[in-house]
């Protein structure tokens, strides 16, 4: 009995764990480490260009290209004032002609200034003699200078510091034309033969002012020895510590480098357990190569100082995170150019060392600047190469699946070796490259092998594929997983995050300050913050007022969005209208229902679903906003499709907040390979699907029923909104097309669009533009430039016109009818949905949270001012004109529900579409009638 029980128990546990263990987890031998790595030569890239001009000279000359010598093309709008060229639009070309006397490599430097106040970097294409010498120059970025708008940091009335608003301040900067991804550390070296040449800047994004361009040599940074020698023998009168608090950075390259509140260690300066007091900078926000922050400090007595930085780097184990340190704009010696911040979960103090000795910096009495720039440094080679390898492997993968399909039959001989003759060669060269990469990473991480390990596993698996090519179909899914591993590796390895508390300069014989508290100090601090947590209200955002003197707004937003929202409100709404706002975050809509039942709902609620306003409005819980004074003006800011879901029986119960609609995402490289044009009509689309399916690829469509209904010219309900009319001939046609996606073409019903898009299995998919775009930009960097958005295919009518309508989805803003501040609430909504406020919010939220948080405002004008690339904005605007809103009536939840049921019947049970649709439309109509009766509305049809 005992034995039986034990055996049963153990086997149960094993059964549960078994399926989850991935196969092929081979043990790795520990390879040797190597300390140098060459860039893989990639056609058209700087790596190729550089290799071509390896043996060129570096002439010590300077060629100055002044603003007044510039030639502008017709499209570029430029004007010359006092030696500076203002390029006020983002189109056209500005060029300079000059002659080069000595052939060789020159570096290009630019003196420029930003010409507007948006946060996006200035982007230009750089061409030499009319063509782009290598692809990295297709989009060269020039950052703007950002600072806190107000001198002093504001505190709200709870004692918490408010995140300072960041603004762009146009300042003249001199910058080298270099790789903004940080792969190539030095600026780009451009080769010129002796003779006449031109340099052109082609507009991509953002206006700018230019004073001059210069072709010259890039100065070499001295070693510490030569630096020490050059400043030797001076009188050392350093007496006191100079501590520069990192959160007080004066200038930044990006608005995401705002001060942070790090409360995990009571030695963070300044520390407060109760309130939000900023004490650090960076964290996850300081992850992009090239982002810098600059401080100013005064030195009282000149002398030799040693430098320390109190920081925390708990992001990347094994790969060193680097900061470049410039004092007064210069790299004083090599060690300052690659200052490493090692991994640890605790706060540390990093000091300047050259070999074993400490480095001392000579600081004169007076005012100085200090700039820290995030850099990729030595790991950049590995990142670049692995990116290239990933693209190659993806290409191999897609060629394989065109023959075998995504889930190959393991018992079939696909004859891969014969049909893809170069397969093993290509795989081998990639394996060799990966092996070198892993050895290099081992060297860099000083033995800490975690980052190298994942790469080693990848190439070991590929080696088994090379050893037995007939077995490749069986190992295909592991191959794909490994490619995904590599691309995630690239993402994490290129992030240079670190949090910095302060930078200190100490005289030679002073000790470094204590970095971490003792055990009891930390214990006390933890107890304190536990005690405080009982008294602090965490759902409040920003300034909080007595309920009688403020309007209450409840938002269904994330915390960062809400913080930004409140800052703008306190900053710009409250002073302008002299009205206070209390803001709270709610987690879901259900809370509102209960608050109404309890009798104390807020004045305004924001970010709600499309359906809620009419339901609440009919039950008199929210106000009819069409009676407000500036209603027509406010409503004019949106597309009609955004407002129609909130209108019922002559009243409008909400104002739109965000709007989204479906759009088609296409992998242009895969489609080009297969000779498929981007489909414009559903017939084109089905043809494309057939071609794709022949190659074992597929497409994905979701939620297109609404769209198809509109495209066939059908409406949901009759004019009186008393019955559903989808069972009209047009509606039936829409339903039939919709079911045929899944029944005739077997498109998948459930799928992960992003991952399949990345691997190329699903080169076309249709999804909501906002979430699709945001996810794709962040999580698929290796396919950057290989995909595009296009309008959803349209339906061709008998007379030949193409109807490309799509169904929009909106979120709403309502005012509750129990409000005592009707006028004030409406003012708030009017102000919030106005163009400039929406643009400001969208820009700030994206600046703080990155491109993955791009705001899909419903305000048409505001959309144009958000940082969309021109080509994407054109597609979105084109689609937006065809967006239609789905009408919401009482009982419309039944419509969605039963349309889905009708679909399930057709899909699962093979029922005829006509029969299912008719049956369920009857059900829908019963419910609509019932609801109308409930509200004493006429039920005439």
């Amino acid at each position, binding site marked *: *009995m*005992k034995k*039986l*029980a*034990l055996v*049963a*128990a153990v086997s149960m*546990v094993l059964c549960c764990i078994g*399926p*989850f263990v991935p196969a092929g987890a081979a043990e790795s031998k520990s390879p040797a480490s190597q300390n140098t790595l060459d860039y893989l030569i990639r056609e058209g890239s700087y790596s190729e260009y550089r290799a071509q001009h390896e043996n060129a000279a570096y002439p010590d000359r300077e060629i100055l290209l002044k603003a007044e010598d510039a030639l502008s093309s017709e499209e570029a709008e430029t004007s010359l004032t006092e030696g500076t060229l203002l390029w006020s639009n983002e189109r056209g070309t500005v060029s300079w002609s000059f002659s080069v006397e000595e052939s060789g490599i020159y570096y290009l430097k630019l003196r420029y200034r930003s010409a507007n106040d948006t946060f996006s970097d200035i982007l230009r294409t750089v061409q030499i003699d009319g063509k782009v010498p290598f692809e990295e120059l297709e989009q060269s970025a020039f950052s703007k200078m950002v600072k806190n708008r107000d001198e002093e940091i504001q505190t709200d009335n709870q004692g918490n510091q408010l995140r300072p608003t960041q603004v762009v301040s146009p300042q003249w900067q001199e910058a080298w034309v270099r790789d903004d991804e940080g792969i190539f550390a030095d600026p780009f070296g451009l080769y010129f033969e002796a003779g006449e040449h031109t340099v052109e800047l082609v507009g991509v994004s953002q206006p700018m002012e230019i004073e001059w361009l210069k072709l010259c040599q890039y100065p070499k940074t001295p070693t510490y020895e030569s630096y020490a020698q050059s400043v030797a023998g001076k009188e050392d009168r350093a007496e006191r510590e100079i501590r520069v608090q990192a959160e007080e950075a004066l200038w930044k390259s990006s608005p995401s480098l705002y001060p942070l509140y790090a409360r995990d260690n009571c030695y963070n300066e300044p520390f407060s357990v109760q309130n939000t007091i900023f004490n650090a900078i960076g964290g996850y926000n300081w992850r992009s190569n090239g982002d810098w922050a600059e401080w100013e400090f005064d030195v009282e007595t000149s002398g030799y100082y040693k430098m320390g930085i109190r920081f925390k780097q708990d992001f990347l184990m094994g790969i060193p995170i680097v900061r470049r340190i410039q004092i007064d704009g210069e790299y004083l010696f090599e060690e300052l150019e690659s200052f490493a911040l090692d991994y640890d979960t605790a706060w540390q103090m990093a000091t300047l060392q050259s070999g074993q000795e400490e480095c001392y910096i000579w600081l004169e009495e007076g005012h100085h600047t200090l700039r820290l720039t995030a850099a990729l440094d030595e790991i950049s080679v590995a990142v670049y190469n692995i990116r290239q390898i990933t693209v190659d492997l993806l290409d191999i993968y897609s060629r394989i699946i065109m023959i075998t399909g*995504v*889930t190959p*039959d*393991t*018992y079939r001989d696909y004859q891969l070796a014969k049909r893809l003759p170069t397969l093993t060669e290509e795989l081998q060269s990639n394996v060799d490259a990966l092996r070198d990469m892993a050895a290099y990473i081992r060297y860099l991480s000083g033995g800490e092998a975690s980052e190298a390990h994942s790469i080693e596993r990848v190439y070991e698996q590929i080696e088994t594929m090379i050893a037995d090519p007939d077995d490749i179909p069986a190992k295909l*899914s592991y191959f794909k997983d490994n490619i995904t591993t590599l691309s995630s590796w690239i993402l994490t390895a290129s992030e240079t995050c670190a949090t910095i508390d302060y930078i200190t300069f100490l005289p030679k014989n002073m000790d470094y300050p204590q970095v971490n508290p003792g055990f009891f100090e930390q214990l006390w601090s933890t107890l304190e913050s536990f005690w405080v947590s009982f008294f602090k209200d965490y759902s409040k955002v920003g300034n909080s007022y007595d309920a009688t003197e403020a309007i209450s707004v409840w938002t269904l937003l994330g915390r960062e969005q809400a913080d930004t929202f409140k800052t703008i409100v306190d900053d710009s709404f409250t002073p302008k209208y002299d009205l206070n706002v209390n803001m709270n975050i709610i987690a879901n809509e*259900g809370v509102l*229902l209960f608050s*109404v*039942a309890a009798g104390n709902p807020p004045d305004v609620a924001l970010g709600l679903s499309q359906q809620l306003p009419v*339901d*609440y409005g009919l*039950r*008199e*819980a929210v106000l009819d906003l069409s009676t407000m004074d500036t209603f027509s003006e406010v409503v004019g800011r949106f597309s009609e499709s955004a407002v129609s879901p909130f209108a019922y029986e002559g009243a409008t119960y909400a104002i739109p907040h965000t709007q989204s609609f479906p759009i088609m995402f296409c992998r242009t490289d895969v489609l080009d390979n297969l000779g498929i044009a981007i489909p414009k009509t559903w017939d084109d689309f089905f043809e494309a699907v057939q071609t794709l399916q022949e190659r074992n690829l597929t497409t994905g469509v979701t939620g297109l029923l609404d769209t198809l209904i509109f495209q066939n010219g059908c409406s949901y309900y009759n004019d009186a909104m008393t019955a559903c009319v989808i069972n009209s001939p047009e509606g039936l046609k829409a339903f039939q097309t919709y079911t045929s996606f899944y029944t005739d073409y*077997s498109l*998948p*019903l*459930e*799928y*992960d669009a992003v991952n399949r898009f990345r691997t190329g299995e699903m080169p076309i998919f249709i999804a909501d533009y906002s979430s699709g775009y945001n996810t794709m930009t962040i999580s698929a960097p290796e396919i950057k430039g290989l995909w595009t958005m296009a309008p959803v295919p349209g339906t061709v009518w008998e007379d030949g016109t193409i109807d490309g309508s799509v169904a929009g989805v909106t979120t709403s803003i309502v005012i509750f009818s129990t409000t005592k501040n009707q006028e004030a609430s409406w003012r708030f909504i009017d102000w919030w949905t106005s163009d400039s406020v929406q643009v400001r919010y969208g820009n700030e939220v994206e600046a703080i949270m990155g491109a993955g948080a791009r705001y899909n405002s419903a305000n048409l004008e505001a959309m144009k001012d958000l940082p969309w690339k021109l080509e994407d904005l054109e597609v979105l605007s084109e689609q937006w004109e065809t967006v239609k809103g789905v009408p919401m009536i009482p009982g419309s*939840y039944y419509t969605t*529900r039963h349309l*889905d*049921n009708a679909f*399930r*019947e057709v899909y*699962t049970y093979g029922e005829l579409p006509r029969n299912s649709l008719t049956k369920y439309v009857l059900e829908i109509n019963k419910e609509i009638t019932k609801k109308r009766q*409930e509200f004493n509305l006429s039920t005439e049809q």
Partner: protein
Amino acid sequence: MSAKAKKQRIGLIADIRNNKISYLLMTPYLLLFIIFIIIPVVISVIMSFTYYNIIQPPRFIGWENYRKLFFDDDVFMISVKNTLVFSVITGPLSYVACFLFAWLLNDLNPKVRSVMTLLLYVPSLSSNVLYIWKYIFSGDSYGLINGWLLKLGLIDTPLLFLKDPTMMLGVIIFVQLWMSLGTSFLTFIAGLQSIDRSHYESGAIDGIRNRWQELWYITLPEMKPQLMFGAILQITSTFAVSDISANLAGNPSPLYAAHTVSLHMMDYGTTRYEMGYALAIAVVLFLFTLVVTKIIMRLLQEKD
């Protein structure tokens, strides 16, 4: 007032005075019980006779809700069928499973027993652990089961476990069973431990030959209170099942294939703003559960 009633009333007050301490100890629980269970039940019964959409004040409509429920609501019938299928299968099965596992584990040495008890009990603790089943049963061709089946060549296209009306109920019953080793399981383990060992010895002397006879003649009768407690808990909790179904198959599930009475109630209460009707459903469910509990108690009393 009749003499008998007066005597009864005095009896109660005297009783309280005599057993003051006991009543005092009961008071906190009694208070909470009355506030959070008795009063809401009473309110529900009263409100089930009204039309109440939560936002506006309720309006008395008499038996209308009940009439509609029994004579006009097809979906309610579907949900009753689903709930019964659920209960009939999961209830007894999980009851037997609880007992079986407890019985098996009883013989292990205490340390191993604690570990195994923990492993089997844990799923019922964290209600969100069912999300792992969402991944396992995912209809994506990369979901765990679909992935393996496709790889082994047993199917061609992924099975939509949680969206296909024919498979949905089965999957949810399975998950429900897995998560059902809860309180009754622990009760049985405790109960088995509390049986006096001497009874087994005397049984062995009296001619009991194998484990099964031991189980039937000694173990089960000794555990009657726990068995009854476990039965009531297990079977009645299956009537209230809704969480798992809603999280896995959605609310409402396609074609109402996994729609239970609880879900039907929530649908009317929170999605359709017809709280009065939802309360009528709740009352019906309550009465039904009461009846079933009484039947179980009767059954287990008679068993000897």
